[in-house]
Each structure stands twice: as structure tokens, then as C-alpha cells.
């Protein structure tokens, strides 16, 4: 047992550390901080979902926040419509709710849609993108355009979404459960653990290996008998559903949702978190999200101007010093030590006479 524990990759210890940290955090923090850490926990789910897509499969989505925001808007609209025609609509002289409001008024259906719609959008997009063999940077460009389109669309549909001001005054509810900050925080951490377990299971499965192979050499994989397009659609859809779930958990902590939550800004931020933490190992996504968001709050309290400078410095440091990210670097060091040992053992064996 102990031997097996020792053999674990270094990042699994960090995972355990992060989860323990999340669990004990409310014991030492006030409600305001817990609310902030709750948002960060929701962001972690979001980062995990993108890590499956970018880190494992090599598909760099520049518009992942669309899926996150759609999840958030589903519950946001549901809460807004639940009390009849909201104020911002009556101010515009609208007296009737739009046709789909009756569907969204059912909180459970809205919550399910918050997962299903991002997943379905990703699957449909994936179908067209991957079967037409769009690859590499062009995937990034299409997803980036998507983020811009959705951001503008949600800002323009002010009769439904209250435009750039967004939907405010949203309750702390998830699938019909309304809780105070700390219990809701623990609910969110519970979901983080579940999503982490799911991602871990996926990445260790043969499905995960196929995804990594797609990142390494998609054409080679098709000569081993896989249809890469199907795998990419599947992972995009799974990633979309998880991103939607993250959005649904983020909104209650934030109390509001606006078009910035599904735009390019958040889409690029999450890429930066993963790049700093290290991609393709789940841990990096969580660690990067935690470090960047926490530093941002701490430094913003200290001085308003210093944060962009620090963030820029971190990005440069990652690009030039540790291109594989913090966790990637640690894994590399561990691997190198192990590999040296293995190779030494092999060469020692070969030196012995074969008798």
C-alpha cells in the first residue's frame, strides 16, 4: 500500500492538498472570503472542463466561456422569470414573459438545460468543425468568434437579458436547494470533487489515452482504427456540459450574470490559469485557477494597479521559464528522476554476462 502511494505521480499529492485546502478554508475565513472562494471553486470546474479539451486533446478553445455563461444564464433567467415579469422588462413596457419563460420557470428543467444546452451546442459545433477537418489554430479562431457573437447577442437582447447590466439579485440556489454561503460553498466543493473524480476517471481510461493520442498525432490514431472526429465531438460535448455546470454554480455566488461571463475576456482568462498551472494533468487547471484568482483578490486589495503587472509577469515567466506550467514542471522533474533510475537499471542488467 505504502509502496503504491509512493509511486503516485507528484500532482496527485497536490490534488489532495487543494481539496483539503478547499474543505478547511471556511473554518478560517469570513463569509465574504468564503463567497470569493466559492466562485474560485466554480472556476475550478470550468478550468477542469477546458483542460480535458485543451490539455488532453490539444483543442485550444478561445470561447469556452460561452458554454460557462450559457449554463449561468439558464439558471439566471429561471430565477428572474420565477417572480413573473421582472422590473427591467416592465420598464420597457413589456407585460408578458417570452414564450420559453414557462419552460425556464421550472427550476429543475432550467438546471438540467444549464448542462444540456452547452453540451448540445458543443456537440453540434463539434460535428461541423471536426467532420470538416478544421484543425489547430482555426478551431481557436472559430471558438473565439463564437465568444464574440454570443457576448454581443446577449448584450443586444436587452428585452430578455437586461443587456450589459445583466441579471442581478439572483438567489443562492442549485437544483432547488437554497442555502446560506458556507453550506452552499460546501455543496460546490462537493461538486468540484465529483467533477475532478470524473475527469480523472476519463483521463485514465482508454478514452483519455485516445484523446492524448489525438493531441500527439491525430492521423496516426486513425491508422490504429479510431475515428478522431467522434472522439473530439465527445470530449467537446462532455467539456461543454461541465462548463455549463460550472456556470450554474458560479452565478449563485456572484449574485448576478452579465454578458462578460460568456465573452472573450473570461475565455482567455481561463486559458491563462491553465497555462500557469500546467495543462493536461487536471491538477494544473485547479492549481492555476486557485493561485491566479487568489493573488488577484489579495493584490487588488493592496493596490489597484499592481495586478495587471503581476499577471503579465506571470504569463511571461510561464512562457519563457516553464512552458509546461507549474505542475507540468514538477511532473517533468519527477519523471526525469524515475527515468534515470530505470535506464541505469537497464544498463546495469546489460553489462552483466547473460548466463
Amino acid at each position, binding site marked *: 500500500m505504502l509502496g503504491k502511494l509512493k509511486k503516485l505521480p507528484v500532482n496527485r499529492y497536490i490534488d489532495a492538498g487543494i481539496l483539503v485546502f478547499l474543505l478547511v478554508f471556511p473554518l478560517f475565513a469570513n463569509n465574504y472570503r468564503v463567497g470569493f472562494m466559492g466562485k474560485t471553486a466554480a472556476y475550478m470546474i470550468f478550468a477542469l472542463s477546458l483542460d480535458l479539451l485543451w490539455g488532453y486533446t490539444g483543442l485550444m478553445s478561445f470561447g469556452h466561456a460561452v458554454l460557462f455563461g450559457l449554463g449561468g444564464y439558464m439558471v439566471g433567467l429561471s430565477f428572474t422569470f420565477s417572480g413573473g415579469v421582472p422590473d427591467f422588462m416592465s420598464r420597457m413596457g413589456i407585460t408578458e414573459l417570452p414564450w420559453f419563460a414557462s419552460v425556464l420557470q421550472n427550476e429543475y428543467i432550467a438546471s438540467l438545460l444549464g448542462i444540456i444546452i452547452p453540451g448540445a451546442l458543443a456537440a453540434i459545433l463539434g460535428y461541423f468543425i471536426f467532420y470538416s477537418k478544421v484543425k489547430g489554430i482555426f478551431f481557436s479562431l472559430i471558438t473565439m468568434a463564437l465568444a464574440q457573437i454570443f457576448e454581443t447577442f446577449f448584450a443586444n437582447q436587452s428585452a430578455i437579458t437586461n443587456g450589459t447590466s445583466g441579471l442581478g439579485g439572483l438567489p443562492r440556489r442549485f437544483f432547488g436547494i437554497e442555502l446560506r454561503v458556507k453550506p452552499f460553498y460546501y455543496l460546490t466543493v462537493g461538486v468540484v470533487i465529483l467533477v475532478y473524480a470524473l475527469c480523472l476517471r476519463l483521463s485514465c481510461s482508454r*478514452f483519455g*489515452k485516445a484523446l492524448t493520442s489525438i493531441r500527439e498525432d491525430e*492521423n496516426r*490514431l486513425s*491508422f*490504429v482504427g479510431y475515428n478522431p472526429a467522434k472522439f473530439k465531438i465527445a470530449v467537446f460535448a462532455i467539456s461543454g456540459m461541465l462548463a455549463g455546470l460550472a456556470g450554474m454554480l458560479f452565478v449563485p455566488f456572484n449574485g448576478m450574470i452579465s454578458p462578460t461571463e460568456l465573452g472573450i475576456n473570461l475565455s482567455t482568462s481561463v486559458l491563462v490559469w491553465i497555462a500557469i498551472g500546467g495543462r493536461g494533468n487536471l491538477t494544473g487547471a485547479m492549481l492555476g485557477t486557485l493561485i491566479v484568482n487568489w493573488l488577484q483578490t489579495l493584490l487588488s486589495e493592496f493596490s489597484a494597479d499592481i495586478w495587471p503587472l503581476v499577471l503579465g509577469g506571470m504569463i511571461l515567466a510561464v512562457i519563457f521559464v516553464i512552458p509546461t506550467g507549474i505542475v507540468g514542471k514538477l511532473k517533468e522533474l519527477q*519523471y526525469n528522476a524515475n527515468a534515470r533510475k530505470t535506464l541505469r537499471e537497464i544498463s546495469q542488467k546489460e553489462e552483466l554476462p547473460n548466463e
Partner: protein
Amino acid sequence: MSEPLLRVEKLSVEFKKFKALTDVDLCVNEGEVRVVIGPNGAGKSTLMDLITGKTKPTSGKVYFRGEDITGKEPYVIAEKYKIGRKFQNPNIFNMMTVYENIEVALSGYNTVFKSLFFRRTPETRAKIDTVLEKIKLSGKRDIIASSLSHGERQWLEIGMVIAQDPALIILDEPTAGMTAAETYKTGEMIKELLAEHTVIVVEHDMDFVKQVAQIVTVLDQGQLLAEGTFEEIEKDPRVIQVYLKDDAEQ
């Protein structure tokens, strides 16, 4: 006569008016070892690309066990018809370990659904171990493929082909760029393969060809030049001319 395993009929392909292959016929029977030789640019690799679905032919047909597989997607040809291919330059998944490379290639779990519920069972482990044993990389199973030597990378790719359980193996210059010791080791490995599988080998090394070939197919400038046993080919004046010409140019 019964249907051969692979039958290629009047296969032609053009790239922007350049005729890479013209009316090539080829029959390979079950259990046969076929060597395809020819000077550079003769269309050997192009022929393999057409069989494995990498390129679509302009005209002509490819039949596998009597079924028309012309122009099918590579993953269909690999999965359904079990044609495994080793590329000219080692084509492996670099940032994955040796073990993972073989695991991904292991046949039978290639759909999204099956791969999600795939579990490492004692049987699959044993199978991967056997493959690793065959390609002499057991000790390096946890090494990341990109840090292997050129020869080891070639072996790893051969291992991936074996793991696919192929009905037909296509080896594109398996000994290219190897040291003498590595070439020898590879030769041993391939001889083992030949005993159990139907194989098409593209090769330059004449000693190697002489060793393994039952029937040799010679291609030149995209056309079938000659076909026969090594002894027949060796004496064929057209083949001698092509190879002499090639030598003279070098």
C-alpha cells in the same frame, strides 16, 4: 482459384497531372510475404497510402477479402479490415509512455463508447506485456516515447502494429536509418512477424529482401515493372537496368 487476401486492380493516382501510379495490379495471398522494391519515387509508399486509405485513388480498385475498400477512411480500413501499417518515419505518440502507445493501439476498443468503459484486465495487461517482450522494450515501458532512440522508436511502431491484431501488415522501410546492430535486431523481429502474418514490406536493403521475400514486386516510375521470386527478379534485365541506372546516378 480462391480470392486472394488483397487484390489491387488497375490502381492509378494523379497529383496535379503528375501520374504517381499508373494501372498497378497486385495480388497478395493469405500468409504471403511480399516485398515491394523500386528506386526512389517509384510509387512504393504511394501504393501503401492508397491501400491504407491515406490517399484516394483517381481510378482503380482495392479489394480486401473480396470486399471493395477503395477510398474508405483510414480508421475504417484499420479497424474493420484490420490492415496495420508501420510508416517510413517512425510515427508514434511522442509525449506518451511506451506502454500507453501500445495500449492505445490494442485492438477492439476503438469506439468512443467502448473506450469509455475499457478496463485494464489481466488479459489486456498480458497482451501488452507480450507485445513489449516481442519488441524488446519491456524494461522501458514507462519511458516517454520521445526519449527513445531512432531504432527503438521503429520497434515501438512495429509493436503498435502487432497490438492491432492485423490481418495484413504493411511495413514501410522498417530498417531505414538504423545502425547495423539495430537492423539485425529488427530483422529478427520482423522474421518472427512473417511467420504469423501476411506482410507487405517496402524495403531497399537487398540482403534483407533476399532473406525474407517469397515474391518480389518491382515498381518503377509509378508502374509495375516486374514480379517474381528473388532469383527471377535478380536476373530480369529490366530490373537490372533500372537499378543500374539508379546506381549510376548516385
